Every structure is written in structure tokens, then in C-alpha cells.
């Protein structure tokens, strides 16, 4: 295997020893790269609302964790089952979602609420159980590391208790973020990620996902249809900062 890598890279090196590219050399990469310009916004939440609407994301603001939990309860009651008779929910096991105390908020609905396994390493039994729950769930609830207002993008990373599949396999995805996690645009997002990487080289983790809207397709005569393979709906709940 190393032998084929060596031979491959030797070919690349030989190829690159040819004179440099046609024309274009004048614009040096180093000069251009920092020019990527970050957008500014005095009202990122308004920017987010505008872009979320364009992407068919159901955006709602919640004043406190209890209000957020109440919103999720309503979504759970109103969403129709798709793959299983029994409506079930599956959620990440993380600090923000724990704060919402969904278990209590949903208690009177009788709907099962599963939690992704937190203890590492995840053994086969726990993994199989999680997969069964995942398949049957109609709603997957996650938090996110960032939310980008300009593109209505959620940034999710895989950590213990936070499998990305929760945002993918159930019919509907509900994401909860704090207002302080809202960034203006992609340029600021990448600046944040770069800063995180300076502290921890593996900050991106092995799997990072950007989600902008529910699953969609236009493959039949360019008619946009939601719910091609992933979630058919995406609810985004922004938890207002206490100061606001």
C-alpha cells in the first residue's frame, strides 16, 4: 500500500516539475485569500429569519428553556407518524437539551423519548438499541454548535451523545440553538472553526455536518419537493439570551 502511494506521489511530483500554469500566475494566492469578506449585520436574528423562511425552515424563538420545551411538545403532538405506528422521539444527550427537561414536558403525551447513548465506548448492545430507536423515531432532536444566519445553516459535530444520524433518519428534525451561537455568515463560521482548531487540532471531529434546510430534491421536472431521503421538515428553535 505504501508502495503504490510512493509511485503515485512520484508521478505527481514529476508532473509538477513542468513549468507553472498558463497565464494566471500573477495573482498570488497569499494575497487573495484574506480578501474573503465577512458580512456584517446588526440584526442577525432577522437575517436568520429571512433566510430560514426562504429554505422552508420553521423558525421559532423561545424566551426560556421551558418555552422551548413547550414548542417541541407541540411539534411532537402535531407531527404525523411516517415509518412506524407508534410516534417516538429521539434526542441528543447534551447539556442544552438536558436543560429543556423534555422528559417532563412530554410526559402527558405518552410519546416515548429516547436518548442517544452517552457512555463511551458505545458497545454493540447500546448501538443496536439506538439504531432500532432511530429507525422508529418520527422526530430527531439535536442542538448545534453554530447557526449561520446568512445561509440558515446549522453546524453539527459528532461527540459522545451526539450522533449525526439523529438529524437525518427521523422524518422531522428539530434543532435548538442559543442566540449566542448565531453567527452572521460563512466567513465568520470558518474563522471560529479555525480558532477552535488552534486550541484543539481535532476540533472538527471525524464528522461535521452543515445543514441548510430540510431534505429536498428537484429531480423530477425541477419541482422542489421536501423530504427526498432526509427529514421532510426542519424546525429551528432559538433560545433567546437571558439579557435580551
Amino acid at each position, binding site marked *: 500500500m505504501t508502495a503504490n502511494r510512493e509511485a503515485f506521489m512520484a508521478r505527481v*511530483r514529476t508532473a509538477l516539475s513542468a513549468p507553472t500554469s498558463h497565464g494566471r500566475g500573477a495573482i498570488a494566492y497569499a494575497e487573495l485569500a484574506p480578501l474573503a469578506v465577512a458580512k456584517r449585520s446588526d440584526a442577525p436574528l432577522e437575517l436568520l429569519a429571512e433566510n430560514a423562511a426562504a429554505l422552508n425552515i420553521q423558525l421559532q424563538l423561545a424566551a426560556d428553556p421551558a418555552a422551548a420545551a413547550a414548542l417541541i411538545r407541540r411539534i411532537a403532538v402535531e407531527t404525523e407518524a411516517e415509518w412506524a405506528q407508534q410516534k417516538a422521539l429521539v434526542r441528543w444527550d447534551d447539556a442544552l437539551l438536558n436543560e429543556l427537561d423534555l422528559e417532563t414536558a412530554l410526559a402527558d403525551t405518552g410519546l416515548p423519548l429516547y436518548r442517544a447513548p452517552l457512555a463511551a465506548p458505545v458497545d454493540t448492545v447500546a448501538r443496536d438499541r439506538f439504531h432500532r430507536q432511530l429507525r422508529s423515531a418520527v422526530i430527531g432532536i439535536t442542538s448545534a454548535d453554530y447557526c449561520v444566519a446568512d445561509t440558515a445553516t446549522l453546524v453539527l459535530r459528532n461527540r459522545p451523545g451526539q450522533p449525526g444520524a439523529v438529524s437525518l433518519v427521523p422524518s422531522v428534525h428539530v434543532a435548538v440553538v442559543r442566540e449566542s451561537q448565531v453567527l452572521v455568515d460563512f466567513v465568520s463560521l470558518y474563522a471560529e472553526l479555525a480558532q477552535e482548531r488552534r486550541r484543539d487540532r481535532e476540533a472538527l471531529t471525524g464528522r461535521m455536518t452543515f445543514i441548510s434546510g430540510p431534505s429536498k430534491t428537484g429531480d423530477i421536472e425541477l419541482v422542489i419537493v421536501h423530504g427526498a431521503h432526509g427529514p421532510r421538515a426542519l424546525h429551528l428553535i432559538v433560545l433567546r439570551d437571558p439579557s435580551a
Partner: protein
Amino acid sequence: MSAIRTEAYCQAAREGMADPVLQKALSGFQHRVAPATAQRYRRHPEGPQVRQMAHAIRMHAVEHLDTLLPRLADGILARGGQVYFAADAQAAVAYGLAVARRRGVRQVVKGKSMVTEEIGLNEAFQDAGIAVVETDLGEYILQLAGETPSHIIAPAIHKTRKEVGRLFAEKLGIPYSEDPPTLTQAARAALRTQFLSADMGVSGCNLACAETGHITTVSNEGNIRMSTTLPKVHIAFMGMERVVARLADHALLFRLLSNAAAAQKMAGYISYIGGPRADFQADGPEEFHLVIVDNGRSRILADPEFREILCCIRCAACLNVCPVYGKIGGHAYGYAYSGPVGAVVTALLVGLDRAKHLFFGETLCGACKEACPVEIDLPRLLLALRHRWAEGRADDLFRGGGDRLEALVMRLWGELARRPNLYQGARHLAVAGQQMLPAEEGRITRLPPPLHGWTQARDLPRLARRRFVQRWAAEQARGEGGR
């Protein structure tokens, strides 16, 4: 390698132009997507030079592949992934098959990927008795219909909802419908079963990041996320040029890619994948393999004239504005890649002689260069291919057969141009001779064989009776006389 049908270009193009359904689909698509893309380009805070910046980022990466590829590979190895460097299509396919056999794979779910089309992965797997399901809705439709993609991003634009309705009724056993949501739902249900039961997922790679050691995948449907999350094994294939140096480079490129591919501000899903699942993860594949494919790319890299095409991010924006693609459709290009990018890439991958119609067929109108998010000078590349082909240089791959007759005419012309007397003689002969050719409004409508090809689609102005130098001298004399 997948079938190469580039020699049949002219015939296939005629068929495309005669197909009213295709004509309607193509013009509808181009009119909708192309202006919307152009509008998106104008809204970047970087201003009009945004595409030039993207070009610089891509060119920088291409010219540093010698450091970027090892860096990418080491990042993935460090997380427990495996990386295979494939010299050609056969090696890439053989590696994929070996992994599948070792894991006893019987069923594969696949996300849309151009490089796997190029290397003919599906055919090889199917020959080995492994079922491969294309999961992108457009690709799924084509697979059921037994057809090939006609567009890089929207592979099934040539299919109407009625055709899809009939196809699904027949193959999926659902009641006939021509309602896109109903049809999409049917595919969603059928494919969900496949995602949950497949033993292996196959994907391409959009733009890997060398600095962090991740590949990326981009989709709107979520099918690539499904294919790379649920099965126990994930293999990703990438053309060796599909990498950028730094994470921050993606901030610009993903915006432009989304604009270019579907006039979106941002694609629905972008995933960074840097290895198999970690032991704390409840989801993700046990094994992750990255196959980095050369298959002729190092030869393109070695040629400074054509190296620029390796900046391509396969967004298909050039197809969406191309007047030739818009008439003949993607199938005419006879290979995985169509449109202006196909005319260049295909020729460089399969050889100039086999694909000459593709680069002679484009019009050099320049629309593709304006639409390209990384501002690749496609017209320059097309011209360079014509030049290279006509010169008939005997490089192994970039050999052009040249046209014997054209070469002869050029040589004669060269001889004539060097001998003024002979030249004058020939001119007199031609001026007299042209009277015998059919003409309309002073233009020759048909040249005799073997030159008749030239007048097939255009008329030729007649040679003037008096040469320019004679007229000029006369005008001068008259002018001076009048003063």
C-alpha cells in the same frame, strides 16, 4: 472504464436536437438556472473578483498536490481510516471490489459521484454479483430506466414526470401518478429500505481539506449522508485534484459551488468526513476507505497548457449556459462528463482523437468562462485542444491525428504566401473559377468536394475582383486629388 461513445457525437447530437421533449427540458432548465446563478454571483461581499479568488485558491491547490495529498491521507490514517492511491480506473475498481469481498458485501448504496461513473464502478460491482443502488433521485430514476445521466447535477432532466410516473408504476408497483411529491415519496420509501439494509456505502468527494484531513460531500436530498452513515463500510472515491489546502478556502468555494450548481445560497447538506466512527459514536461506518484516483490526471497536471482544467469543481454551471449543450443534450458527449467541461476533460482523459468532435463542436462563445465559479478559461482550453489536435503531436495521450487535407491545404497556402507571383496567379485563377460556384447575394453557398464541409452551415464571401492593396492605392490617389 465506463463505455466511451464520443465517436458517435454527431449522430447522437442530431438525435438530441430532434427530440422535442429534450429540447423543452433543456431550454427550461437553462433559462431557470443560468440567470439565477449569475445573479447570485453578484451578491458576494468580495465583489466581482470573487471568482478570480476562487480560481487562485484552486490553482494553488492543484500546483501543490504533492504536499496536499499526503497531508490529507495522513489525517485520515491518523483517525483509523484507510487510503488507497489508485493509478488508474482498474486499480480503483479492484480496490473497491477487494474491500467488498473481504466484508462479504452483497448490497451497496451509492451517492452521486462523477468519478465512479468515470471508472465504471457500478458495472464492475454488478458483474461481481453485488447489487448497486443509485440513491440520488435523478440517478435512481435513470437506473430503473436503464439509462445514463445527461447532466452532472440534474442527471434526469431529460425525463418528464409522465415518464417517471410510468416507470415507477412498472418498477415499484405503485399506482400511476404524475405528481412529483407522490413520486418522490415512493422513491423515499423504496430507498429507505435499501439504506437500512445495505452493507456498504459508496460516495464521491467534493473538495477535500488537506489541512484537517477530511473529505466533504455535498447534497440536497440527504442521500449521501444516508449512504455514508448507515452501512458498516464507506468507500469514498475522489479524483486526485479534488482537494484544497486550508479549511478557510471552503468558506468561499462552498458558497460559489452552491450558486453555480443550483443557484442556491448554500447547498442543503455539507458533510466533513475524516475517518470511520470513533468508539464513542453510536452511528457511522466501522470502516472508512478513501480511494484517490489518478486515471490520467497526472498527465493533465504535467501539461501546463491544460493544467487549469484540474481547478474544476464539477458544478455544471458551464453546461447551464452552453448553447451547444442546450441543443444537443448531455448524452451526445458520450462520456460521464458533458458540456464545455466535458469537451475538455473527456478529450484529455480518453484521448484527443477519440473525442475530437466534442471540442470542435463547442462554439467558443465564452459563456462558460463567465459562468464558471472558478473562472476556468474554457474557450482557451478548447482552442488549445483544436490546435494540439491539428498539429498532430505524437504525445501518447494528447495525440491529435490532425486532418490530412487541412494540413495539405495549409502547406500549399504556406508555399503560395511565400511566392508573390505564384500567389497572384492563383488568385486570378480563383477569382475566375469562383464564377462557376453556386452563389446567393454575392456569397458562395456550396464549395465543391472535398471542401464542401466548410459551406454546410455557412456561406463563403466571394473573393473581391480587386485586391485591397489596389483599392487602397486608388482611394489614396482619389483622396489626394480631391483635396
